[in-house]
């Protein structure tokens, strides 16, 4: 169960990370008309950050089961 409380805490940390990633001022850094590989910067950033969060969640939830 100690394991469980640990990953609950890790998930809260991810929540805070997500709040940071999806709000001002980090958002403002990418809020411009630039492009990465032909994809608008903000769009690319949002989906990349989103995917990163999900990967981290998978890592926390599934990784700690083993």
């Amino acid at each position: 169960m100690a394991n469980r409380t640990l990953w609950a805490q890790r998930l809260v940390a991810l929540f805070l990370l997500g709040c940071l990633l999806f709000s001002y001022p980090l958002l403002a850094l990418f809020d411009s008309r630039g492009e990465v590989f032909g994809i608008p910067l903000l769009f690319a950033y949002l989906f990349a950050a989103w995917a990163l969060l999900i990967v981290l969640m998978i890592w926390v939830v599934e990784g700690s089961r083993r």
Partner: protein
Amino acid sequence: MPLGGLILLTSCAYLGVLFAIAYWGDKRADAGRSIIANPYIYALSMAVYATSWTFYGSVGRAAVSGVGFLPIYLGPTLMAALFWLVLRKMIRISKANRITSIADFIAARYGKSALLGGLVTLIAVVGVIPYIALQLKAVSSSFLIFWQYPAIQMPSQSEAMGPLQDTALYVALLLALFTIVFGTRHLDATERHEGMVAAIAFESLVKLLAFLAVGIFVTFVLYDGFADIFDRAAQLPDIGQLLTLGGPAGTYSSWAALIFLSMLSILFLPRQFQISVVENVNENHLAKAIWLFPLYLLAINIFVLPITFAGLMHFSAGTVDADTFVLTLPMVHRQEALALLVFVGGLSAATGMVIVETIALSTMICNDLAMPLLLRWKALGLAQRRDLSRLLLGIRRGAILLLMLLGYMYYRAAGEAYALVSIGLVSFAAVAQFAPAMLGGMYWKQGSRAGALWGLSLGFLLWAYTLLLPAFAKSGWLPLSFIEQGPFAITWLKPTALFGLDGVDELGHSLFWSLLVNLGAYVGVSLFGRQSSREHAQALLFVDVFKSAGRGASLWRGSASMTEVIALVGRFLGPDRAAAAFANYASRRGQRSSADLVHFAEQQLAGAIGAASARVMLASVVQEEPLGMEEVLGILDETSQVIAYSRRLEQQSQELETATRELRAANERLRELDRLKDDFISTVTHELRTPLTSIRAFSEILNDNPDLEQAQRAQFIAIIVKESERLTRMINQVLDLAKLEAGRVEWHASEIDLAEVIDDALATTSQLMQERGVDIQLDLPPRVPPVIADRDRLLQVLLNLITNAIKFCDRESGRIGIAVQVLPEALQVDVRDNGRGIDAADQDTIFEKFRQAGDNLTEKPQGTGLGLPISRQIVEHFGGRLWVHSESGRSGTGKGATFSFTLPLGQSDVAVPGPGHETEDKT
């Protein structure tokens, strides 16, 4: 038209498949082999969050606000990270209290308040009806557009269309029928619908596949990947605003408000509560949902912008509603199959939402609105009716139909006022009003019924004023001046700029005021009011759900007739189900007090008719003695907190006491050791000084008298040599003992033959024995089993005992005896002398260091006084014992003393029979 027929056929076939899945799921559940007991199904069913509002509306919203459609999905992603913390507690509370809806949850938390349950139901119904309307609109317009294939023609609202020609009405009725059929098949105490969940999970798959199919078609078939679409879209006017924030895509604050709002709605939308809390089979399924659900949302959104841009580029501005791009893009490119798939996907998105939402709402309406009213309406005589289960089902079915028709009416009346996404947000803002009462109720014991009531009412009013009324005004039901100038031209009452709060978008504005007032009233009233005892009891049950499992029965006191209670439950669940439930309960828990049974009955009833009504019903058959506030506080606080606290204190003080005791003992031991060490050193120095004295004295005598006689000289030198030897021996033994006591001795344990060691010892001492004229008598068994010991050390022990015996045996006719006995588990060696024996008082002290049986001997014994302590240490090291037995020889004609020691037999010879027996060779 063949295509029209195909559309109808496909729709019916799809609903048929859904029904089949639901039916199969229910059958499996009845058979006890649940198909939804699977974390993937659970996570997929959560995706009921993505409705037609997502399926069609995201593109519509993206066309206007670009990336502004995303926060609605980012919020749930963030909340998913908190699922384990928040949702799990919600599930645990709901399971423990048989809660079947949000209304039930809030009512139960605040003292099973029927009023609160009714209010929550009202807010949920009013708030969610527009959302249902939205689904009906989506299905009917997608149907109408597809019907026109291959033409692309927007269904026009201006065209006067009677309700009977309106497809939306038929959609509504069809969905109502469908929901009734597999949403209210039977009444269950847990209010779970396994078949429905299976169907919803399937729908989630369908809508995802359909959307991905369109996305891939548009992005990779029509265009050359993401980069290509974005590249070409660069020519679109205002494209820049769509891809950055600050413009139509929303400011940072509105972006944050949307994220916050969608975080709350993923918890508090009635359908989400139904799926993720009520229908949850296993808390651990949450773990999978934590990442799978956000992943689903990401997948269904990744192609939104490409489809939007493709639509904007393809259709000239204004001709085609962006809400329909998902469907019209495949149509215009003559992809009938894909368009059909999209249509089915949209249908699944809408039906999924409608089914779950109406089931959830109908449960609320039945349990928290209709039943309390009907039960109080004495004239109906409901409380006396025998079987109410049919009535309950009837109410639910009626509620579903009613909800669907209300949705339809809203759609007819206001459907065109807002784009799809805006309607959805109105609903989100409505259910966000539940947040203070729900979350406060879960984590804050002080939160009171009055606080929740005030907070919810005021929040709801402000929501209606700032969001719903403007929507009505935009639909033409109210004069537009109402929004533009404020009611009666009072500008500070302007619904969209209350108290002059301007510059925030409508949603953020509404959210700010409604939640501020809601939270303020909830907290304020709770803090300054008092909870009733029942409220306090429920608050503890909710907040401490992880601590106090299965409590609550103890809070009831009174008398009840069991047959009446069972009959009562039977009236709601059906007599057979009730009898089965009680039989099951009895077999599981054994004979319990009536309080326990009443508690169980209340739980059963709560599942069927809600917590508040269940209490009212039970009160009619049992005589409850009201518990005072102090008593409840006594029962709950004492048992849960005070006792736990005092137990902890008690435990701590006990631990402290033990520690203190141990410390004191240790200290005592240390002091004792210190004293012993002191004594030891003093004794050692004394013992060392004695031979040293002789040595020095004779050395000086020899030195000062060079002309001493030869004989005397020789005598003195002999004394010096002898005393030196004594000194050396003493030093060696002191060191030896110190090493033994410190455990720094190297032992060379091996299997040894004791008889052989005894022979050795006798050989060594034979000289001394001859000098003293001592007789030796040896008594060995035929075969001495081997023991495990250090041979040299054992020899040391034997030598010590034998020389002692020689020294102390009778002067005139000394006789010593050595005997070996084989005991069941050990060997015993006795060394006997015929001296004067040892006083009982001395028998212990002789084993102490430097204590020779001594003070009243006429002659000072020879030796160091360390032999016996050393021998005892050695014997004990090998697990044996060394002791002396002597019939005290006060008179001087003693019977001698016998020193005995044992040594445990080696493992292989443990089973050796008693002394004197021949033993078999077991090696």
